[in-house]
């Protein structure tokens, strides 16, 4: 177990170094980051001055070395737009994004687990149809469209929830539903499939039909399978929600990282974009590591296979 953990840890660190390299090159995709970051009417002299100030005139390997040295100490330079250290801006917005993502996850799980289990245990029933329907709708309705509809209906028409902002629990409801809808669809499908799968395992079927398996034991098997499935997917979905928050946070004026991505991209503030990319990637890598560990705890076979 310790060896497994250690090797996964090393893998994660190597991966993060790769992410740093990747981000460095993405910003240089067009060849001239200075031109990319300056406003359209900037004069050639201003661009040149900026290039020198940012160190973009240095040879690529020198730039890379400086970037990596900064990155390893958590220094991603200063945000051009906000005029503050980029990483501290990102860190400031973590609580809001985390709050929203966790609430969305909570919403998705609370709805999908019962729905998926009911659907999976009664294939072909009206519950199953509902379950499959939600699964499909969740994956086909664009979240920003849903967000706008939620505002029109629940805020403007019914006045149940605020239209924007982060002011306590009530303001969390609509953004969490909008962001959680996609994972809701995904989870519902997966829970249903994993329930079906365990019910159809030959040994379970035989045991159950012969009366050797009691209902509560079957239930236990089902829950175990569902838990394994969900643990494996929650990490990935968290990554998705960090992306989806670009839309949801912008629409609901939620003060988190997703909204900052949008503003940084519009302002062509690429030092900030770099910091956000590295941070979120680091978060996903960490989450995957935790997922693997959780997985190894639940299912001991995993660690030997690796």
């Amino acid at each position, binding site marked *: 177990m310790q060896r497994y953990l250690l090797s996964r840890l090393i893998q994660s660190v190597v991966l993060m170094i790769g992410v740093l390299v990747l981000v460095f090159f993405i910003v240089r995709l067009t060849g001239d980051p200075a031109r990319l970051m300056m406003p359209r*009417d900037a004069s050639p002299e201003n661009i040149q001055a900026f290039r020198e100030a940012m160190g973009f005139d240095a040879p690529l390997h020198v730039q890379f070395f400086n970037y990596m040295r900064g990155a390893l100490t958590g220094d991603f330079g200063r945000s051009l737009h906000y*005029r503050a250290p980029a990483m501290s801006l990102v860190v400031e917005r973590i*609580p809001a994004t*985390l709050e929203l993502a*966790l609430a969305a*996850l909570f919403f998705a799980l609370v709805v999908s687990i019962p729905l998926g289990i009911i659907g999976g245990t009664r294939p072909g029933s009206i519950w199953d149809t509902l379950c499959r329907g939600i699964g499909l709708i969740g994956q086909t309705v664009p979240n920003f469209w849903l967000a*706008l509809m939620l505002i029109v209906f629940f805020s403007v028409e019914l006045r149940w929830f605020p239209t924007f902002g982060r002011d306590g*629990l009530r303001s969390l409801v609509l953004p969490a539903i909008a962001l959680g809808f996609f994972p809701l669809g995904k989870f519902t499908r997966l829970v249903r499939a994993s329930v079906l799968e365990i019910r159809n395992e030959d040994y379970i079927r035989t045991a159950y039909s012969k009366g050797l398996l009691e209902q509560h034991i079957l239930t236990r098997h089902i829950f175990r399978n569902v838990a394994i499935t969900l643990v494996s997917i929650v990490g990935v979905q968290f990554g998705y929600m960090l992306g989806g928050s670009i839309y949801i946070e912008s629409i609901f004026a939620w003060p988190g990282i997703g909204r*900052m991505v949008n503003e940084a991209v519009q302002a062509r503030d690429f030092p900030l974009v770099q910091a956000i990319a590295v941070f979120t990637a680091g978060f996903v890598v960490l989450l995957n590591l935790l997922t693997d560990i959780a997985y190894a705890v*639940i299912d001991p076979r995993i660690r030997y296979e690796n």
Partner: protein
Amino acid sequence: MEKKKIIGLGLVFLVMVGTGTALAGGGREAPAAPVSTLRVAVPTFPNSLDASIAAERNAQNVAWQMFDSLVWANDQNIVEPALAERWDISDDGTVYTFHLRRGVTFHNGEPFNADAVVYSWERGTQPHIEWSDRWGRAKSVEAVDEYTVRITTEEPDPLLLGVMAQHWNIIPPRYTQEVGDDGFGQAPVGTGPFEFVEWVREGRIVMRANPNYWREGLPRVDQVIFRPIPESSTRMAAIQTGEVDIVNRLTVEQAEALEGVPGVNVVTYPIDRVFYIAFNNLTTGVDQPTEDARVRRAMNYAVDRQAIIDSLFGGRAQLATGLMTESNLGYDHSIDPYPYDPARARRLLADAGYPDGFEIGFAAPAGAYTNFEQVAEAIQGYLADVGIRTSLDIMESGRYWDLEAEKALPPLFGDSWSERSGESLPRLLGALGGWDASFSAWSDPTIDDYLARIGVTVDQDERAQLYRELHQFMYDDPPFIYLYVPETFEATRDNVVDYMPRAAEDYFLMFTYIR
């Protein structure tokens, strides 16, 4: 055993969710509303609350509620005293002596005096300051005594007072040095009508009334809260539900829809921006028919601009009569816009020797301005009606502006120019400055002469007269097809009184109150 593990894992997860939510959201509620609070939605969020670093209009608007300059430009763009009670200008127009208001203190108690002005200027001219070029219009700023400041310029600068009113926020030296530029931008201190209370990043900016404000009886509300809402449909929803009192940057359709909503007032006004189709007499337009003034006038007659405004902007824009707008100094109200008169256009073309019209290149940027692609297409159609056949090239805006700066666009090209100084000089120089200006493709010695004279005439009335003459000249010999001056759309709750945004989309909330 298995079961326990799973339950354990589930518990760990629930605790994670729980603590995460609690950590992130626990105990943070909206502050209790005092007697009168004005809640203002802004479409972008300030990068800084220091008016010298605040990058764009909305950030500037937020920041300026907390500051004063030596002078203030009123709603008619007339410069009035502010932190300076009066000033004298030397005969050659390069030395200004400001006599400062006494007894004014900054929000933190620091006294306002000549040293504060000198310090503000010294800091403002440093290259890392966003608006350092505006501060840099003065060559030197010296303290003569505690309440007298002498400001010197290289040459007579008629725009200096206007620029000071717009950009010179006076800051307290001691506090600024203590907290540094970053710290100041996050928690600024000024002499303005409102003082800084808190800034929850991207959540809210709270200010309270300055009880010792030097303008008697102002401000009229106890508290102002700015809320950032980037999405315009969310802003519209928020004004409907009454979650905010003022919203700006709505679309024309949103404004129209809000007009029927009880409790909401729509605010509309023309902004200081002119749209035009420019001609070129420097590069691609050389030896083209458009070098003839009759042809250019014909083209102004040929386009039914009112129809374009009616259909594309719901009638909510004004016809441009020149490169100036009504809010600019020296705008000649007696000049009427070119009427739509295709017959006259054909006659003028025939006079100029093109009875059957001609062919010419035409370009416009894509996605840069509201409906501008459609405007360009409509113009193409109208020009074709009088025989002028254009090949319209709608280009990605980045590439378009690169080509415009290189003067490599076709002889007809569309664009717009906004101005915030209250005068049209910067816009005129930028769009007509010939080879010296990066977005100009036109040069005319008469215009150059006018611009040179305006640029050194410090007396406001004389300058206004020169603008009026130039306005008439540019009407008779148009270097553009003048299009329209757009309007902007805002809305307030109907109990908001005296909210008066101006053509540069700036506003001062010290006059505003809630009924």
